[in-house]
């Protein structure tokens, strides 16, 4: 069994079986990263282009590492917004890259839907590495992978996502992924950061962090985008931290074996207390390691190798 589509644009279009397939495939690739020689020939002769219109070090590096460990040739293309001459559309840029025989294009872009638009215009496989506030599917997949390492059965888990849900592609992809696998999802944020009708995703919404943490199996803390300050979403970082920072005291409301996750980079002392980030409950660095494995698994499946 392989993936139905040539692209991975979002979690919302994946079936729960496809999600499981990606996770299972990724497991075998996790072992590769533990070897002394961290390389398999699965994508030898294939070309992966990282097309990043938004600055990102960790996601790009993770994709790059994943592709290299699969023996693919990797090109990093990071057009800064200033060098995108007026008039060249995303599609034109991508067609240029396609002409260089790229097999997989990994796209990070500030516009929601950019990956879908691109995928319709090129024959290469497109992986969405984050499009605006829309989706960041590989982040959600690596989060699921990480959860399963400690809590293998996602169904029935209570997962609390805390932070700026409205402007978070990580939140959206995780909501889709977790609900598809049967988890109970809670969202915690000031009401200014909760998008309209989000309850229709089958999640429950809390404005009180304490209430949202009660009995949680997993807590996903989102990074507070400091540039939201001054735009009336919240009064001050001080007040945000007082109300929404995950502290040791608050964490006691969750299950004793609660897992603490964060997509990074951390604002220590803003959304997460430093002692929590460094505690046994935190799996933040596992997430980073698993990111490479999941991206390897995904590229392997998309390259057609999984359908042999």
């Amino acid at each position, binding site marked *: 069994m392989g993936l139905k589509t040539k692209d991975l644009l979002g979690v*919302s279009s994946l079936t729960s079986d496809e999600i499981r397939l990606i996770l299972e495939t990724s497991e075998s690739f996790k072992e590769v990263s533990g070897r002394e020689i961290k390389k398999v020939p699965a994508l030898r002769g294939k070309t992966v282009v990282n097309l990043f219109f938004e600055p990102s070090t960790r996601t790009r590096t993770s994709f790059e590492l994943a592709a290299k460990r699969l023996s693919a040739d990797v090109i990093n293309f990071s057009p800064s917004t200033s060098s995108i001459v007026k*008039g060249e*559309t*995303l*599609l034109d840029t991508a067609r240029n890259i396609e002409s260089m025989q790229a097999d997989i294009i990994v796209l990070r*872009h500030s*516009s*929601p*839907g*950019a990956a*879908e*638009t691109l995928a319709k215009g090129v024959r290469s496989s497109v992986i969405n590495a984050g*499009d*605006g*506030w*829309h*989706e960041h599917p590989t982040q959600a997949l690596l989060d699921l992978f990480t959860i399963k390492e400690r809590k293998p059965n996602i169904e029935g888990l209570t997962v609390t996502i805390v932070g700026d849900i409205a402007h978070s*592609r990580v939140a*959206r992809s995780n909501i889709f992924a977790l609900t598809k696998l049967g988890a109970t999802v809670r969202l915690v944020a000031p009401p200014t950061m909760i*998008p*309209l*009708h*989000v309850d*229709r*995703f089958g999640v429950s919404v809390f404005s009180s962090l304490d209430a949202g943490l009660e009995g949680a199996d997993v807590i996903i803390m989102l990074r507070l985008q400091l540039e939201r300050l001054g735009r009336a979403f919240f009064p001050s970082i001080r007040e945000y931290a007082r109300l929404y920072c995950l502290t040791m005291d608050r964490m006691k409301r969750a299950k004793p074996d609660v897992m603490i996750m964060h997509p990074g980079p951390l604002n220590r002392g803003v959304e997460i207390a430093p002692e929590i980030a460094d505690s046994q409950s935190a799996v933040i660095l596992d997430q980073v390691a698993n990111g490479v494995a999941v991206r390897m698994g995904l590229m392997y499946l998309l390259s057609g190798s999984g359908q042999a």
Partner: protein
Amino acid sequence: MNMLIRGGTVIDPGQFHGLGDVFIRAGKIEAIGEHLSIAESDMVELTIIDAQGLVVAPGFVDLHAHLREPGFEHKETIETGASSAVAGGFTSVCCMPNTSPVNDNQAVTEFILSRAKQAGKANIFPIGAITKGSEGVELAEIGDLFAAGCVAISDDGRPVMNSQVMRRAMEYAQAFDLPVVDHCECLHLSDGGCMNEGFVSTELGMPGIPNASEDVMVARNIALAELTGARLHLAHLSTAGSVRLTRQAKANGIPVTAEVCPHHFSLTDEAARDFHANAKMSPPLRSAADVEALKEGLADDTIDTIATDHAPHAIQEKQMEFDKAPFGIVGFETAFPLTMALVEEGVLSLERAIEKLTSAPARAFSLKKGTLAVGSDADVVLLDPSHSWVIDPTQFHSKSQNTPFTGWNVKGKVIKTIVAGTIVYGSD
């Protein structure tokens, strides 16, 4: 040259509805009635048009269009816009001032009118800006604009945010009995949004424009119309809230008229799901509940007219990412069949649908158009309400093809358009 349109179902809203002939002499409606007998002297150079099975109506009047000239001729020119208009049955078009330069002075108005004269085809009525440069600060020379031929004032896509400036504009416009047209949008509430704020925008991660962005400005404008007594025309209503507010204002005797665009009663924000900017317009496509409210508003005459908000954009502009692409779609050549869908659905009778495209808009802006009354300009459209066809933008007469209706199977076709007694669209 004389013309006899024979044997059609003549619908002149509120005036005449039945089988009959229309006789045109020297560009004016000369007579209307059953089996007209034409004097021997009029038989010379008489064009006879067989309208059997067709509806003969006044040419449509569009209160809201963007012809893009001067400044954006790559999207549309007055000539291509006029060709598109008459292909859609519109013989009179009011064009918004957001050209470059903005139509905020006599010279631009005169330029538009002279280009319109060269283009021929449709009658073009410019709408002047409310404020200089549509910047919302200082009033444009509204008296000059009126003298040059503007029929209304509006800052359309750049609505006047300062309520005091809007109040003064409404007061001042009364000196010329000019309607003040507002694109009701609170830009603070829209805050860079690019589609309706609702479940779909939440799912797509798209910045949303809430209904309240329109509603608060409709409410403000109604309050200002009550204060000043100005003639207020509300452009392209899209929300249930603004229909409700307008209905209440009319019941209270406040001088307000309102329009709706075909896309707002034909589509919902679900159309944005494929991220193609042909579903991006301002105001945005709203929810199913809003669509229902708009239809109710049309049915009970809260909404007086159907206007296109014809907004051509080049292909490469609409191919951009959804949030970066410009707002707007072309509208002239799809307006009639989309309106006919309301007739099929029973929202409006055919006569009332035609009224909202002809006499009602003419009345709102005091244009001597939209009628087949004897002595009026012979602007006439021949329609086949039951003709089915598939919308194909490559066949449009507009320079642009940005429509979300590609491939729609629709009913209702414009067969022939006549302006001042001359056939400007459709074969002889």
